[in-house]
């Protein structure tokens, strides 16, 4: 069953002489529970693609279906609620709320949904992310790897079906990168989440279930790993 379906997606920035065709008629689909890595040259259109998948930006043409719903044709409010419940984001620069503790950062999206945080799930997640001892610390008191793990926790806590990550290890050293990716993989496998992640790191890409290559706005499928 396909969780994500992208149909002839195109994006052109600007117009006339300065127009940049960042995405050219992209079509592909992702199965539920898949761990997908997106690779490609700098400026090839990876981030542009990811932004469309998260409905952060509007495409020039084309459609994106998540869980069978056309997310790009929704109005802003519906999009927000949909994003809140179905999509988790992980950023290169962590983007945690500096004034909130680890625990508060993780539960914050639930509060935005006016829900009561599930404390049992929170404990479990903190254990998986190896952040139990740190739950009352502020982001500034954590290392980069730890901060990114908090971000992963935040992305997972609302139980979204799709997690989008743009170079989540871009700001980390290789040791931390490996640890974070391992956790991301473990968590997504445990809770059956679909992950789409941009990376420049060859070995991380290799560890994914499936690799998509973007070059000059065109997406080509490098195939699934057997398993």
């Amino acid at each position, binding site marked *: 069953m396909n969780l994500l379906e992208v149909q002839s997606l195109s994006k052109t920035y600007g117009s006339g002489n300065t127009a940049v065709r960042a995405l050219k008629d992209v079509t592909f689909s992702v199965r539920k529970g898949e761990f997908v890595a997106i690779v490609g040259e700098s400026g090839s259109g990876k981030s542009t693609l990811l932004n469309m998948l998260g409905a952060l930006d509007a495409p020039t043409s084309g459609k994106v279906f998540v869980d069978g719903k056309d997310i790009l044709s929704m109005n*802003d*409010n519906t999009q*927000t609620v949909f994003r809140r419940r179905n999509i988790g984001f992980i950023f290169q620069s962590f*983007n945690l709320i500096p004034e909130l503790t680890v625990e508060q950062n993780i539960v914050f999206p639930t509060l*935005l949904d006016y829900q009561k945080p599930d404390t049992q799930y929170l404990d479990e997640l903190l254990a998986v992310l190896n952040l139990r001892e740190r739950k009352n610390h502020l982001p500034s008191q954590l290392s980069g790897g730890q901060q990114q793990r908090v971000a992963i926790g935040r992305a997972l806590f609302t139980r979204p079906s799709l997690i989008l990550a743009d170079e989540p290890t871009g700001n980390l050293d290789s040791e931390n990168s490996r640890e974070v990716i391992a956790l991301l993989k473990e968590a997504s496998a445990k809770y059956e989440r679909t992950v789409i992640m941009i990376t420049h790191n060859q070995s991380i890409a290799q560890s994914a279930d499936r690799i998509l290559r973007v070059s000059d706005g065109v997406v080509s499928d490098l195939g699934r790993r057997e398993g």
Partner: protein
Amino acid sequence: MRNYLELAKIHARHNKRQSRMTVFCIVLAVFLVTSAFSMVDFEYMHMTEKLIKDWGNWHILLNSVPKEEAERVWEEASVQTACWYDTLNYNLDKNFYLDGRPLCIVGTESSFLDDIAVEVLREGCFPQNDSETLLSLNAKNISGYAVGDSATFQTPAGECSYMVCGFISDTSGSLASDSIIAILDYAAFESLAEENGQVREAQYYIQFKKSLGIQRTIAELKALHGWTEENVSENTALLGIMGMSSSNYVVGLYGIAAILVLLVMLTGIFMISGSMNANVSERAQFFGMLRCIGAGKRQVRHIVTCEALAWLQSALPIGVISSIIACWGVCAVLACGIGGEWEGMPVGKISVTGVSLGILVGFITVLLSASSPARKAAKVSPIAALSGNQTCAFSGKSWRNVTRAADISLGIRHAVSKKKNLLMMTGSFALSIILFLSISVMLGWITHALTTNKPYTPDICVYCDGYAAQLDNQFAEQLRNIEGVKCAYGRKHILADVQLNAGVGSIDLISYDDIQFQWATKDCLRGNVADVRDEIGNVMVVFGKGNPLDLGDTLELNGKTLHVSALLSDSPFSESGIPTVICSEETFEDFCGASNYSVIDLQLKKSAGDETVAQIRELLSDNLGLSDRRASKTEVNSTYLAFAILVYSFLAMVTLIAAFNIMNSVSMSVAAKRREYGMMRAIGLDKRQLTRMIKAEAMTYAVSGCLAGCAFGLPLNSCFYKMAITNYWGTPWKLPIAELLIIFTVVFGSSLIAAYVPVKRLSESSIVETINVFF
């Protein structure tokens, strides 16, 4: 944490330092509004009390209404109390005397003292029968009457005796004219008036039950009884202060307070929303992230609004409490320090209106200020979360070799390059200047509109009946020797016909002694007062509309020539249409022959009291009069002082707001560019160069702000000046150079200080910190 909005509170707690300026802004706004309205409120209470004391607690007065018709108002349900009131010899121009002192006789009913002139009775009670009378206190103090004594009134129709049954307080009028007031029962009064054949104009005082809807009641009464405007006079002062009349002092005060509130709110909103807007732009990435993790636009708006409201938590108590304390202080100073008409000022009270208005204005200011930044934050696209690495506008050119001129010009270019920013900054600087220039007109107004006690204003005047010249030097010496008299100075006076430049005219020739010359020196516009004092034949004149004489003119008196050799701006004498000419005593004798003083003025020592005045009285023979000016002097003094304090504190606040607004704008603009400055430091700009650059930038704003401020502020200033001063006193508008200097100093000074503070913080923090501060 239960609710996402708690984030706002936590954010505010963590960013106290950054929002200190904003919190101070709110504190200032709350403080000013609470204080202004509390003071007006206190003044309202005090005035109501004072008006009831001075004018009586009545609402309307019926004139020339037939007795039966007037008394029928008792049937009206709305009437609380009513009584007859009439006077004999009110103007002291008829022959009514008590022991040689002019006597004013009042006839009324007991309810007058019970309900209307409530604070007047000092001793005893209202006359119980036709043969009793109440006297004003000076009859007791000066003539030694006591309750139970018999007092014999001299009336044109002959003598009649009454028994003194009590005393009422003096008025400043009765003290100045040295007259006595007597109150008779209305029936006794009527028969006395009849005996003397006086035309009577009885008045009927009416006090209504409640203070609301009085105007309607009055209109109904008029319609019912067919009374005209002439029949009904209103106690405009009391009705006015109760808000039942349109033009009056308190409505004016509330108006001033309302204008102040508006100004404070506008400036506050301007400042707070400015700094919040800058803050929101800095945190675009944060708001983008919130949108990504599922915050809706409305939620983002709420978070920003709540952040602003969180400031109120600390700002409101500080503002309100400091204002309450400040008001207590001001009231205490007014009531105890200045005294006079401020004596009854309430101390230690809390004005509910003031405090609630302060809180309300705090809320409104914050909510209005937050609305635009909140909308701006809500508009931030979720993509902003991803734009982690913005590129800096400055490329890798080396800054190491930048010369002094270059960093300054860079600062100026920086200021000018962003048109919108320049416009905002110029606008905010100009607003400060315009505010100051408009309000400073009030300074000119107090000097013109309010009379103040001059150094020569006497406490006591001694004069002969008809101002005949009968007071000799020896008498003046006697007065001087009384314990408690600080100084005594006499004036000789003659109404003389003189040969003026172009024809014959009269002048008032008045002589001064040394001490009066000394005081006059301060009022000298042109010429030399010492010449007038030392040389016979020299005189001085007072500048004014009715005076044709000017410096250098000559006049002929008794065949000799007088030279005008000094021009004064002011004198103790009121304008009478006849030019006042002042000379030395020697000149006076030389031209008019030896003569005595017509008037001797006395100033008393601070410690002197009524016993000194009694001693002076003992020296007076029958044909000498005494005018006690002490009460009116205190009244004038306290009014002037209070107004001066009001105007100056108002102006000080406006200046403070102006300076604060400027400092806030500059530091805001620096804070917004902090990262840019960090980048510049990273690529080689040193601290000194950076300082110079930021200062140059601030100065650019100051110059453009001053230009714009003058362009709008000066026309406003001249317009207000013409409306408030030229129209009444004819003084033409002049360029307010002193005010301009002051406000320019404030503008440049505060922008330099404002530029210095963030520069210091920038240079203290490391480059990396500065660049990373907003990641």
